[in-house]
Every structure is written in C-alpha cells, then in structure tokens.
C-alpha cells in the first residue's frame, strides 16, 4: 500500500514537473505555397541539378529574386538533394513549416522579436481556449522579394460640411 502511494505520488510529481517545464506547443499557420507546387520532388526528383544563375524560363517564371540576389541563388536556401526541404547554414534540413529558422540565421533581431510576438503578426485568441493564429515570416514577406509592396489606402473620412 505504501509503495503504491509512493508510486502514485512520484508519478503525479513527475507529471506536474513535466507539465510546468514543457514549453507550450506553438502552432503556426501553414506556409503560403502556390497550389499544386508542393511537394517539389514531384518534378525535381528526376531532374538534373543546375546550380547556374539564370533567368527561369520554363517553370517558376513568377520568381524574380530580389533578396540579396548578388550573393545568393536557389540552392543556398533550397536543398539540392531533397527539394522538399530547406537547408540551414550548418547543413541541417528543415521543413517549409519551420522556414523561420532559416530567416532567423541572417535576421537575428527580427527573429527574436518575432518569437515574442512583436515583429510580425498574431491573430485569433491570445488566452483561453480559442485558437491562436501565428503567422510565419513568409506570410508577409515573399522570401524571393521580401520588401513590402505599396498598398492602396482605404478612403479618407468625409469632411464635415462647411455650411
């Protein structure tokens, strides 16, 4: 009986400790992808790797790289052998859902702020049972041309009449 009690207590303590230490699981909104594109290996698995900088004429014609393009090309971020993954500097492969780790390698301060919810945007619920909506870097910044495009503003308020 005593041993049973001790076992129960230790189990309970373990659970309590684990739940207080375990980080909150954060879910991010799935990355924005052109429909029908993913998985990339559908096409790339059988294609030859071409590392040359060139204008893309057959596929991905919408991509115009404006992201430090003088010192970068596709395979600096996309992995050459497994096109369904992104590649960190140290060679680790990550999923597209974790792309923020790749962005964070250069943009440290923004990455730090983003993890705290300051850079970037959060929506939905911030407490209670409701759904948290956390956006990835790529939801606001196109990774191939990250600068914000100018927007058309909503109409100004109506001026009060002079009469």
């Amino acid at each position, binding site marked *: 009986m005593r041993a049973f009690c001790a076992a129960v207590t230790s189990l309970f303590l373990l659970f309590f400790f684990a739940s207080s230490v375990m980080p909150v699981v954060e879910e991010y909104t799935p990355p924005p992808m052109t429909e029908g594109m993913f998985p990339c290996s559908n096409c790339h698995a059988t294609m030859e790797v071409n590392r040359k900088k060139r204008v893309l004429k057959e596929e991905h014609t919408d991509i115009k790289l404006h992201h430090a393009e003088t010192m970068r090309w596709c395979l600096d971020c996309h992995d050459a052998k497994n096109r369904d993954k992104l590649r960190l500097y140290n060679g680790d492969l990550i999923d597209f859902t974790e792309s923020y780790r790749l962005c964070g390698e250069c943009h440290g301060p923004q990455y730090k702020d983003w993890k*705290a*919810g*300051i*850079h*970037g*945007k*959060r*929506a*939905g*619920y*911030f*407490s*209670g049972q*409701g759904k948290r909506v956390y*956006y990835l870097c790529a939801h*606001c910044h196109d990774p191939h041309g990250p600068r*914000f495009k*100018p*927007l*058309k*503003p*909503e*109409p*100004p*308020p*109506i*001026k009060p009449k002079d009469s």
Partner: protein
Amino acid sequence: MQNKRYTRREFLRNASLTALGGLTIPLFSSCTKEEAEDFLQRHFREMTPEEKRQVIAKLEQRYLQKYGRKFQISTQEAVPDTFWAYGLELSRCIGCRRCVYACVKENNHSRHDPQLHWIRVLRLKRGNLINLENSEHYYDPDLVPEKGFIYLPVQCQQCQEPPCVKVCPVHATWQEPDGIVVVDYNWCIGCRYCIAACPYKGRVFNWAEPNIPKEEINPSVHYLGNRPRMKCAVEKCTFCIQRVRQGRYPACVEVCPTGTRKFGNLLDPNSEMRYIIDRKRVFRLKEDLGTEPKFYYFFEA
C-alpha cells in the same frame, strides 16, 4: 397657532405634490411605455443581475426588430488579473486605414450621416518629430506609404487618469477594473463635456440616428462596447471589450497588414506589451498632460 401652521404646511405639500403630478402625467402620457421604461432605467453599475437580464432581453428584442438579427449581448465583467495596454510601432505603420474600417465593421459604427470613426490616422512630415498641429488625416494618395511622411494612428488612449471621466456630470463613463474606459450609452445625456475634455479626440458623438446596413451588422456585442448606439450618445474605442475579455485580439490588431499593432496584459510578465515596454523605445502621446495613457507608441532604431 400650532393647528394653523400644520394646515399651511399640509396645504403646501399637497399643492406641490399636485403640481408635480400635473407635470409628470402629461410627460409620461406623451411617450410610449417603452420610452418611459428607458427613461427610468438605472445606471449600469447599479443594476442587479435580474435588472441586467431584463434590459438585455429588451434590447435583444429591439435589435431583432430593427436589424432582423438575433443579437448576443454580453455583460461579461473584467477578467481578474488583467490590465490591458496597446502598442503601436510607428516605423511600420503605412497609413493604409485598414484598421479604421475593420473597427467600423466590428463595432457597428454609423456608416454615413453621421460617419463615425474611432481611429484617426494622422499623416506627419518625416523628421518633424510629433507635431500634431501640422498633421493631416484626410490624405488620399493612390498608394501608401508616401515618401517623406510617417503615419500616426490615434484612438482612445485608455488613460489611467481619464479627463473625460472626471468631467462627466452624470457618471455615464467610467474606468473598468481592467483599465478600459467605457460608456453607458443609455445613461449618457449627450452634453459632450467628455469630447471637449479629451486631448486625443478619442470620442465621437451621434448627431443623428446611426445608419448601419442590416447585412453588415455584427450581432456579437457587449453592453458597454459595440452594441448599436442611439442618437445623442457619445461613443469611443473600448479596445474591443467584447473580444479582449474573451482572450481575443482587437479587430484593428487582427486586420493590420504590417503587424504594427500590438496588444497585451500589463500584469502578465510574458505578454507582448511587457516585452515592448522592457525592450523598446516607447513614448505616449501628450505625456505632459498627466493623463497616463495605456497606449504605447514605439519604433525601431
């Protein structure tokens, strides 16, 4: 002698009661029962839970008739251990006014005649510091952001020492325990002292009966927040009281395309607002007035 005085006093009392009655009866006979009930409705903070239920039922019935939708009117009280604050990053705002119209929709504003906005986006010349006198809020270019300008959205700053609350002669506006300044629209007499007292132009007035398209109505409302207002009531930003008390971000935060707007609980050390105040360069508008706003503007170096 004593007998005579007694009768005189009695006479006066009877006479004044008759006069009062004579004045009141035509007053109440000229208005419907509903209007008389509204007139006699108590201040929100003095209502018993039963009275609140009756008022909510009456309002739901009235909104159903007027807008053809079933409303959910909440009277949810402040959540314990919450004290809300707002953050806005000036270096990221592009002045697109998405927040203005998201607020209009969420909070059931009158769309035209009168057109009421709780958020005013000011455009300032870059490099002039915050000189509000030279600001412009009717700007209308084809594309924003414009070169050489910065944008400064202003709404109710939810002051800790709110001048609007101090001047209200009938206590129709007050600060809730979670720091939000609210208005009991039914208690408001429309004197507009609060509008004159507010240094941020945070309050607006219903000069006429509000115009809200039936199909655009938001039926999920709070009694002290976004329920449809009436003519002669003053209204203001409530940090979307109907959302934040359920743990949901305000509408302007959700809609902002650049993530300029931040919201959080000052009593929670892990909240976004605490992070901003600890690590960023923050300032508040017109701090010298001593209004202690809970609306923090900040910017990157």
